């Protein structure tokens, strides 16, 4: 009995942490999911207008030139950043075993973040020469004041996770904590560099270097913020749900440093052939290829860990999404390496491949890991279980279909076919537009899959937020621990399993 006391206290602590973060984390996830839906709608409009240009041509705010940056901005700052914030603050508190004492400030900052994203998106959509107009630069399309406000708001969201780490309980620092801590510092460095070099120093530097710094910013945000957050989540979910330790801890540390060393060099390959120093172009192309190394380290570790408990793989939505995310990471970096090879860039630099690659990274890798984390976290903070296993399953498969379609059909096939036609000197522009047509339709189709999936996910999440989730059959964490669950001490999977069997019986 005496040995159980720490466990009870531990579970109590976990419950306290969950309770302390309930509102901000739920807010980030729910508003993030809503922005994902908005982003996909904008993406569908932008994509549809590249194959049917007269679709919604009544109003200029639907033009590709506006919907496209708005789509990417909402995807990055609306969904990506907010999902990442939710995961960062929850995971850091849990791993540092510290309650959050400033959830009110985080919640307020979260509201302000959303307000800024909304205003920024409107600025992008209203077009040129207004009081505040978008910049038209993808990934940094919001006007300068909005970008500065976002960076400042980030501080009020992120600092509490750093404090939680500093006052952590226990001696060992888990790999996820390293990834999260790195992401927490990289994000402001990248944001500040991006804002300074491509927005504030505008007109103060060479026009080409302003563009090049934006190219670097995009790559750095992907590799040094979205990637480590997704990796942290995967390194938490895979061992937690499978109930096995990480396959190789030293490989995980190696993967982290490989990412830290290689990641910041990439990005300038987008400027290949432009009159900036050529060492930058080739160095970045090399770094983009080398990104395969951290990706393989992550992939091997997550897959090996997850495979050690095959039952959990088949039952747990969190693990399923996380494993899909690991495959997404591999696909993303292999595709990235392939299209960034200097020989291939000739075809892919201005083809659909670059945009497709960003979508593959953001939706196929990062979002998959975030979905995995959300399916794990939300039942804990709301103290309710997900309502429908079939909805989760459909969300999973529709997302996988959509992303695979975008990665293989649009990015790989479309990118090279479009690029090949562009490189045929004798072919008129008309030929390239004609070649693009089926792939543009393919992208719209992929987006439609993703939108349906996201709609279901949003509804599900909203119901959970309203605390309409299933009341758990094990109402407290303490009791849950009494079960010999195969999914670790607080697995909610037994219920999902029963749900699954109910669903199949029905």
């Amino acid at each position, binding site marked *: 009995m005496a040995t159980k006391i720490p466990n009870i206290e531990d579970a109590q602590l976990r419950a306290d942490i969950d309770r302390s973060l309930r509102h901000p984390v739920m807010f980030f996830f729910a508003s993030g999911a809503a922005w994902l839906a908005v982003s996909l709608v904008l993406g569908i409009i932008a994509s549809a207008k590249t194959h049917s240009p007269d679709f919604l041509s009544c109003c200029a705010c639907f033009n590709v030139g506006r919907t496209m940056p708005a789509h990417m901005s909402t995807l990055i700052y609306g969904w990506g950043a907010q999902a990442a914030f939710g995961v960062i603050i929850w995971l850091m508190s849990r791993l540092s075993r510290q309650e959050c004492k400033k959830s009110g400030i985080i919640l307020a900052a979260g509201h302000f973040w959303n307000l800024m994203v909304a205003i920024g998106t409107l600025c992008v959509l209203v077009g040129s020469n207004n009081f505040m107009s978008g910049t038209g630069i*993808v990934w940094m399309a919001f006007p300068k004041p909005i970008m500065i406000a976002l960076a400042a708001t980030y501080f009020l969201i992120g600092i509490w996770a750093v404090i939680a780490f500093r006052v952590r309980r226990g001696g060992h620092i888990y790999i996820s904590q390293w990834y999260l801590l790195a992401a927490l510092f990289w994000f402001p460095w990248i944001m500040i560099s991006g804002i300074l070099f491509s927005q504030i120093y505008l007109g103060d530097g060479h026009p*080409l270097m302003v563009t090049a710094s934006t190219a*670097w910013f995009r790559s750095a945000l992907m590799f040094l913020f979205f990637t480590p957050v997704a990796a942290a989540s995967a390194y938490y979910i895979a061992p937690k749900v499978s109930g096995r330790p990480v396959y190789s801890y030293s490989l995980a540390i190696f993967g982290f440093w490989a990412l830290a060393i290689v990641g*910041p060099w990439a990005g300038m390959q987008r400027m290949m*052939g432009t009159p900036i120093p050529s060492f930058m172009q080739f160095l970045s192309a090399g770094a983009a290829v080398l990104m395969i190394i951290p990706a393989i380290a992550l992939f091997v570790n997550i897959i090996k860990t997850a495979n050690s408990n095959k039952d959990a793989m088949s039952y747990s939505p969190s693990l399923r999404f996380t494993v899909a995310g690991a495959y997404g990471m591999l696909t993303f970096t292999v595709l990235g390496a392939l299209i960034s090879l200097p020989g291939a860039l000739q075809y892919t630099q201005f083809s659909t491949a670059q945009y497709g690659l960003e979508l593959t990274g953001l939706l196929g890798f990062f979002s998959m890991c975030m979905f995995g984390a959300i399916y794990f976290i939300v039942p804990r903070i709301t103290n309710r279980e997900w309502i429908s296993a079939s909805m989760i399953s459909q969300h999973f498969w529709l997302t996988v279909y959509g992303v695979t379609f975008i990665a293989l059909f649009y990015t790989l096939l479309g990118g090279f076919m479009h690029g090949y036609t562009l490189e*045929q000197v004798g072919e008129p522009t008309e030929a390239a537009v004609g070649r693009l047509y089926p792939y543009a339709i393919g992208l719209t189709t992929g987006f439609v899959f993703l939108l349906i999936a996201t709609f279901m996910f949003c509804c599900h999440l909203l119901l959970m937020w309203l605390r309409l989730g299933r009341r758990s059959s094990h109402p407290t964490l303490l009791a849950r621990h009494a079960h010999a669950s195969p999914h670790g001490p607080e697995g909610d999977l037994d219920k999902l399993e029963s749900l699954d069997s109910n669903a199949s019986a029905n």
Partner: protein
Amino acid sequence: MTVKTFFYGLIASFGLPWLVMLAVPFGTMRSMEAPSYDEVNDERTDLYQPTRSGRTENGSLIYAQEGCAMCHSQVTRPTYAGMDVFREGQGGTKKDAERGDTRRITNAWDFSGENRAHIGESRIGPDLGNFGNRLVALENEENEKAAIAMGIALEREDKSKLTKQEIIDALGDKAFNKELYVYKHLYSPRNEGHEDRGQENEWSVCQANPQFFKKIGNFGQGASDAVAIKCGKQVVPNDNCRAIVSYLMSLKKDGAVPYAMQYSKDKKKAGK
């Protein structure tokens, strides 16, 4: 790994590429000196200065804000990175009547007057780096066609050809209007309703830009730059439209460069 070593590692692994890829090139490229022509090869000694006319700065801003760079690039890459230079009209013209072979790759001075170089996201539409030059070529072609149709002789009695300006003067109102051509493209990229140019752009996926136009009353002889008549009112370009069209017409990246920058060219032609 302690927290301290972690931070040292983090700062070093981020700081070095940050300096090498971002800060140093940014700080040094702003003071990149223009090359000068040399006496022997170029037969002139002044500094290389690509000249641009038009509303470059605010036109460029509108170009960015309207997201034109999503579908249009503005760069002619060297042959190690693509075949751009060989595409007719993109990097210049192979056989220009006056200047010979004007094809060349984009250089760092081609973006002078702009705050940001619009390299472009993709090439869903054609590259616009030399749009201004293609427009001039189109103007000449259209004017010659019109002159032939109107029975204006393109040659004088002594067999010398009429200059472009002389043809324009002879055509008067019938001369090709470059601005109007671009206005019409921005208003209706697939030329719907423009009987004069037919449906030749039917394949285009360019976006219509109603935001660049305003409606004014249909008075007197009508505005010379009206692109359409709608509901009894003339549709004319607004100020943003004039700015972006002026910018688009300034996109000429085929000017002669010093021999030092394009040594493959014939020495005698390099400076001309």
